[in-house]
């Protein structure tokens, strides 16, 4: 009896090898696909060392990345903290690509590798493949070859134009990375083959048509007909499609001084920023989904007798430290833990579907008691981002469990006021405020291009729509404006207008 029970185990010792890894993977896959109904990209699991993990960390988690000093800075920073023991390294890293690449640390035990495989190769993978944001905004098939293209392209530019010239453009582009995404408009799908072709053609065309003679022409000849010129300018403004929220896009298309290769660099930075934009909007859901999946799978594996008690205890130990949420007055507190919140919300959905209370029936009439928790979760994972997910599914029971409360911080007050707590009157306010905190688009400074006086001094006019009176860090703002100027070639001005009152709060310009 005992013998047949142990022979079912996927692995016995804590050491892993490729045979046990693949056996565990197959068992996990069966549960994930057949029982949870996940739909995933094919998986590719790569074993890496700690140093390679640090490398991956510092190049924003991409296996291929162009070279820039800021990644080196991040590396020194991470390495410093790692060596000092301030924090450990992640057990895994997963890339939204097709095939989905998961990095496993070589130092993990077999139990950890099992946990991580379930977490990343199925949880995250399913989320990447099915969530609407990722489906619309990123192209998992193309990203790896695009990254390869960009890396090679930038290396070639460095060879051709010198490292410092490339670095200067990248520095400026990085400064505008946050303003380099389309928030409301869907970007055109990127296809690398066409992309490369286009870049090459652009360069070739420029090279062929380049004539040194043009350079010698006097620049601003008197325009013969001012009215016609005026009309032309209006026309051009319309063509420029202002106002424009994506500064990098605008500069790439319309900058007056950039050379073709420099425009291509802006484009690369912009595409990468756009690629990561969905991840930032779905932190809670993504981690919650992965955590929920690994938790369900390891428990099923244990029920099936495929992992030993020791192994599941080890997994649960690391699971519980991952979903640990310190309270706000705890020295360890650093914001709400997305793993904890996401996992708790998804467990809560399962509970509401299976064992609803009368309160749940009031709050979630469409799912309470339906018993269809799998379908509900799959639907939520596919069709929500953090903001809408919290707004829809954060239950009063969970607010009570986390003892959430809402604190308002008015700029003129010496006090923060507790506006709502976990009681009948506070639930909706807490839920709405929490959801709003996860709306990345609303919380980032909204800076747009509003006007360019192409006829006059060609000054680029930017407008910052101030929400809730939140201004910009002045030193950083001025330095960033210098970067905009560097890319635009002429002076740049920024005006801060309060979105509610329409009053001008500040004005500044590069001189």
């Amino acid at each position: 009896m005992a013998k047949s029970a142990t022979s079912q185990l996927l692995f016995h010792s804590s050491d892993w090898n490729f045979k046990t890894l693949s056996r565990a993977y197959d068992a996990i896959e069966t549960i994930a696909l057949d029982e949870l109904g996940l739909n995933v990209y094919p998986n590719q699991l790569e074993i890496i060392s700690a140093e390679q993990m640090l490398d991956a960390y510092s190049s924003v988690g991409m296996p291929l990345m162009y070279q820039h000093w800021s990644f080196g800075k991040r590396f020194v920073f991470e390495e410093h903290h790692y060596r000092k023991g301030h924090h450990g390294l992640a057990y895994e890293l997963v890339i939204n690509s097709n095939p989905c690449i998961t990095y496993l640390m070589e130092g993990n035990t077999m139990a950890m590798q099992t946990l991580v495989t379930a977490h990343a190769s199925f949880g995250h993978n399913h989320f990447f493949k099915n969530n609407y944001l990722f489906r619309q905004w990123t192209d998992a098939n193309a990203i790896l070859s695009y990254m390869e293209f960009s890396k090679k392209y930038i290396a070639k530019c460095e060879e051709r134009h010198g490292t410092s010239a490339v670095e200067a453009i990248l520095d400026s582009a990085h400064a505008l990375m946050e303003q380099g995404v389309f928030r409301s408009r869907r970007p055109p799908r990127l296809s690398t083959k066409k992309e490369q072709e286009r870049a090459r053609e652009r360069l070739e065309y420029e090279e062929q048509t380049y004539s040194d003679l043009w350079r010698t022409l006097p620049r601003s000849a008197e325009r013969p007909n001012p009215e016609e010129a005026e009309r032309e300018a209006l026309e051009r403004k319309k063509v420029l499609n202002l106002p424009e929220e994506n500064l990098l896009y605008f500069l790439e298309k319309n900058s007056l001084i950039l050379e073709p290769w420099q425009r291509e660099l802006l484009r690369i930075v912009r595409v990468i920023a756009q690629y990561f934009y969905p991840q930032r909007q779905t932190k809670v859901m993504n981690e919650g989904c992965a955590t929920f999946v690994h938790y369900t799978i390891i428990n099923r594996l244990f029920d099936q007798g495929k992992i030993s008690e020791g192994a599941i205890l080890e997994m649960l130990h690391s699971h519980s430290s991952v979903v640990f949420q310190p309270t706000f007055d705890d020295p360890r507190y650093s914001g709400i833990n997305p793993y904890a919140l996401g996992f708790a919300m998804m467990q809560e959905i399962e509970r509401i579907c299976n064992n609803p209370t009368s309160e749940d029936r009031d709050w979630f009439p469409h799912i309470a008691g339906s018993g269809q928790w799998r379908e509900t979760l799959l639907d939520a994972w596919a069709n929500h981002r953090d903001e809408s997910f919290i707004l829809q599914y954060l239950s009063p029971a969970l607010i009570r469990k986390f003892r959430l409360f809402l604190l308002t911080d008015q700029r003129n007050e010496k006090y923060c006021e507790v506006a709502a707590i976990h009681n009948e009157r506070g639930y909706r306010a807490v839920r709405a405020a929490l959801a709003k905190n996860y709306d990345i688009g609303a919380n980032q400074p909204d800076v747009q291009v509003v006007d360019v006086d192409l006829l006059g001094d060609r000054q680029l006019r930017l407008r910052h729509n101030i929400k809730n009176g939140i201004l910009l860090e002045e030193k950083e703002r001025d330095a960033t404006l210098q970067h905009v100027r560097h890319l635009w070639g002429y002076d740049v001005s920024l005006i801060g207008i309060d979105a509610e009152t329409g009053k001008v709060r500040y004005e500044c310009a590069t001189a």
Partner: protein
Amino acid sequence: MPNFIDRRLNPKDKSLGNRRRFLKRAREELKRTIKEHVKTDRIADVDAGHKVPMPVGGSNEPTFRPARDSGDREYVLPGNREYTPGDRIEKQGGGGGGAGSGAGTGKDEDDFQFLLSREEVLDLFFEDLELPDMIKLSLKEAVAFKPRRAGFATSGSPTNINVGRTMRNSYGRRIALHRPGRKAVEALAEEIAQLEAEMSLDTSKRQRLQALREELDGLERRRRRIPYVDPVDIRFNRFERQPLPNANAVMFCLMDVSSSMGEREKDLAKRFFVLLHLFLKRRYDRIDMVFIRHTDEAGEVDEDTFFYSTQSGGTVVSTALEEMLNIIRERYPAKEWNIYAAQASDGDNIPRDSERCAAILNGALMRLCQYYAYVEIIDERETEIFGSTDNGTSLWRAYRTVDDKWPNFQMTRIARPSDIYPVFRKLFARQPTMQFRS
């Protein structure tokens, strides 16, 4: 079935290029700040403090970022215990602090400061600086040796025989030459003894005994011919005498403390000495410092007295040089010590003593010194007049003659703190190989 790839054997240091780019950037930044530190007034801090935070200037990554202290915000926090709606929490208190961290976005990374060790700071500080006469004479005629194992030799003293190596050689030779073993000889001897013990021997046995005796005889002869240990087997441990570089330096600080040297002059002189000391510390394991101050008579004092106590009197520079010569003779034989000297003065001297100083330097001192730097501290107004001319105080003119003769003698003028570092660099700049003292 998933696709497993073992990446551990991939080439390492994927981000080496990035790191190199970053360090290059940081290095330029650091060099700039350190230069400024030296120019203003914090060189003593550089020596004392072990770490320097990295300036964030050029490695900063600015973005449009919400200002922390503006606007209305709402935070949702976990772990409410006693609050009810309407409660107020002071902003600086725990609640506000927690709230602040809840709202910050990506705050950590730019607060990060890059810490350099003192060594690295000094390396940056002294970049391109090279002691003028680094290949010290005593390096060649090294005074101390340390034996170091260096393989094996076929000759040597019996105490150094390497038994293991010797026996291995002997064993190999014995096998190669088929030296009969002790056991074979004994077995043969025993058989002979048995035959001899028998009372009556027939012919065949007698013949056999005869054959055995001959064989034994042959074996024993062979054993005698092929010795157990032959002189060619013997190996000795070989030692090499490794010269120990002379890592001791002594630095003489000479200063005029007569009333003509004011607070400003002393301060400038001190800075120069500090720089020199820092510089030497990087090169030598052990550095002794000797402070000699002089008015119309010279004396060795400790550092505090040297810099901070005043003494009145006239000025006779040669007394200090004589004192230095005495101390070298007594305590710092030039064979064992690298001798550096730095003299600071305002150039005042009693008449005709300057020539005496030059004579002492030319006669004895310059032969002993590795390097001698003379710094004349002048009034700021005098800079224009004396800029680069040979004109000047009597001491300056006398020392010019020394300067011409000895490549390891350097002299210069300082008027402002900001002059010191450039001057120091000039004095210690990498120079074409200099003549050794003969």
